């Protein structure tokens, strides 16, 4: 696992460059890939929050779809039932999700390791089931749509549209990244690392690790809620399947694929995996279904075995290889 301090400066610069590039190339993108990129940037926020939990605090959550889906529903409900404008709805989505994370976290964080993973998984599973059967409120597996309101910036109100969504997602991803960066390099970030490395010792050094873990879980819930709200806004649709397990799995995969504990990695992972899945499924669209998923499985296994630290560790490996030869 990379130490955040060492990559900090580099990450910042490359991030700013990437931001500028993303902002500039938007007009050049074909509409579909502009949409896909928007989606990816929203996923990236989700992955960021997840990395705080897994990469920096060492808590392997396996039910993050719970928080993501709840963010989606929080936003959609505000739209659907109260016809709220964009910002309040988003705020409420985030708050509600964070609150839920506090509750679930308070129970789950009592455990650690595999227990934590499985328990969070069961939580998300049961909530998925409940949402599936409470059709009048949630729409069950049919879900429901809503009219996406414009984003009001005070001086100007932006109509709902692909370009606006793109920059909205970009903006929030930038904010999320900067906030996460700040969190992990804050005193609290040190404590998170301490907990990841040696919970008991951290406790003996005067840190209430239980409380800290709950807070971290809430933080990652906050980002999940934000990304969920934006996702619901993007698709102006929610259904119970947003709670399904594959989402929890994929955020884990993004994180590991990109490089756990390096905020950039998970975002990168989200992008690559999403594009890869999309490409494969189109490549095999004339065959019987499932071929692309088989191939995805193979790729996952290969990457996980040969790149344990994710693709971000490639340059480092190359350097080490070079050093060995020299």
């Amino acid at each position, binding site marked *: 696992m990379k130490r955040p301090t060492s990559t900090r400066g580099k990450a910042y610069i490359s991030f700013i460059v990437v931001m500028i590039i993303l902002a500039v190339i938007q007009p050049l993108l074909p509409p579909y890939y502009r949409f896909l990129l928007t989606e990816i940037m929203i996923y990236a926020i989700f992955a960021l929050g997840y990395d705080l939990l897994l990469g920096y605090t060492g808590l392997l959550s396996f039910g993050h779809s719970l928080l993501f889906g709840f963010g989606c529903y929080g936003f959609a409900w505000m739209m659907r039932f109260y016809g709220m404008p964009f910002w309040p709805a988003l705020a409420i989505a985030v708050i509600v999700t964070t609150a839920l994370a506090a509750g679930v976290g308070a129970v789950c964080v009592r455990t650690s390791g595999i227990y934590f993973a499985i328990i969070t998984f*069961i939580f998300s599973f049961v909530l998925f089931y409940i949402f599936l059967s409470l059709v009048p409120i949630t729409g069950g597996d049919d879900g429901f749509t809503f009219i996406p309101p414009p984003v009001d910036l005070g001086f100007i109100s932006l109509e709902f549209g692909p370009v606006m969504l793109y920059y909205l997602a970009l903006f929030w991803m930038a904010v999320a990244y900067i906030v996460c960066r700040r969190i992990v390099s804050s005193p609290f970030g040190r404590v998170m690392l301490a907990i990841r490395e040696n919970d008991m010792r951290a406790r003996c050094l005067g840190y209430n690790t239980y409380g800290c873990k709950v807070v971290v879980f809430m933080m990652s819930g906050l980002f999940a809620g934000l990304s969920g709200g934006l996702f619901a806004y993007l698709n102006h649709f929610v259904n119970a399947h947003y709670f399904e397990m594959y989402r929890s799995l994929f955020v884990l995969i993004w994180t590991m694929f990109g490089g756990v504990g390096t905020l950039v990695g998970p975002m990168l992972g989200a992008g690559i995996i999403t594009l890869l899945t999309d490409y494969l499924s189109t490549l095999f669209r004339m065959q019987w279904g499932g071929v692309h998923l088989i191939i995805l*499985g193979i*790729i996952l*296994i290969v990457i996980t075995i040969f790149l*344990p630290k994710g693709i971000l560790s490639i340059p480092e490996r190359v350097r080490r290889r070079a050093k060995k030869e020299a």
Partner: protein
Amino acid sequence: MVASAVIASGILNGVVWGLIIIVISLGMCLILGLMEIVNMAHGEFYMAGAVVSFYIVQWTGNWWLSLPIAFAVLAVMGLGWERGVLKHVEGDVIRTIIVTFGMSLIIMYTAHLNIVFGATSYRIPNPVPFNIVLPWFTYSGFRTVSGIIAVAILVALLLFLFKTKFGLWIRAGRTDKEMTSAMGIDIGKVSVATFMIGSAIAGIAGALVVSVAAVNTYMGMEALVYAFLVVIIGGLGSLKGTVIAGFIVAMVDSLGGILLTPLWAKVILLSILIAILVFRPKGIYGVWGE
């Protein structure tokens, strides 16, 4: 109000189904306990067992024959995956989760191709064509038989674990890897064996339900959820806990299905889980935690 006969048969079914769930979960429990691998592909092994058994019945028409064959095939499969893939990531919980998930994708969707099994669901004709008729209610003969078989498997497994040298190694490895390997036992070998047994048991469980529940390529997911529930309530890697938890889960499902709505059954399961978490964070008989 529900008739007493219904409740009685519900309880009986809870027991039988509980036994099947236990057989499913035991494999996972072993693997989790010794190798600390959360086997996301466990459900797929169970599904594969069902598919194998289905084809055996198709070709030979003999369900009993399919039990040992499913066992053997899945054992070999387990061996392959362990040696080929898992041993590269052993000891790293997160990576094993991703790798086993990859495995489950591969297994599930390979079975899913029309040339292998396809998307349809099949059932094999009931190999035990009689029902157990008591004066006040009847119960399926086949379920009873599969319950008995499940018990047999349990007993066999326990004998293996507690009476043979190999079983001793497995249990030793579960409590303290370092010590065990220090005693000159090849922990790698033990792991392989454990994984093989674990998947083989899942396979037999699959063969057991072929006639009760239909075979299709998605049956694995549900089984996985049950296995997780059982393992977590029972306490990771604890055989005793797994058995008890298996019965609890099956009973809540069975009776909850009869007396309440399934929604409530699920809610109750969750509350049991939370209660256990709060009062016994290591599960009923947890043997190891962090």
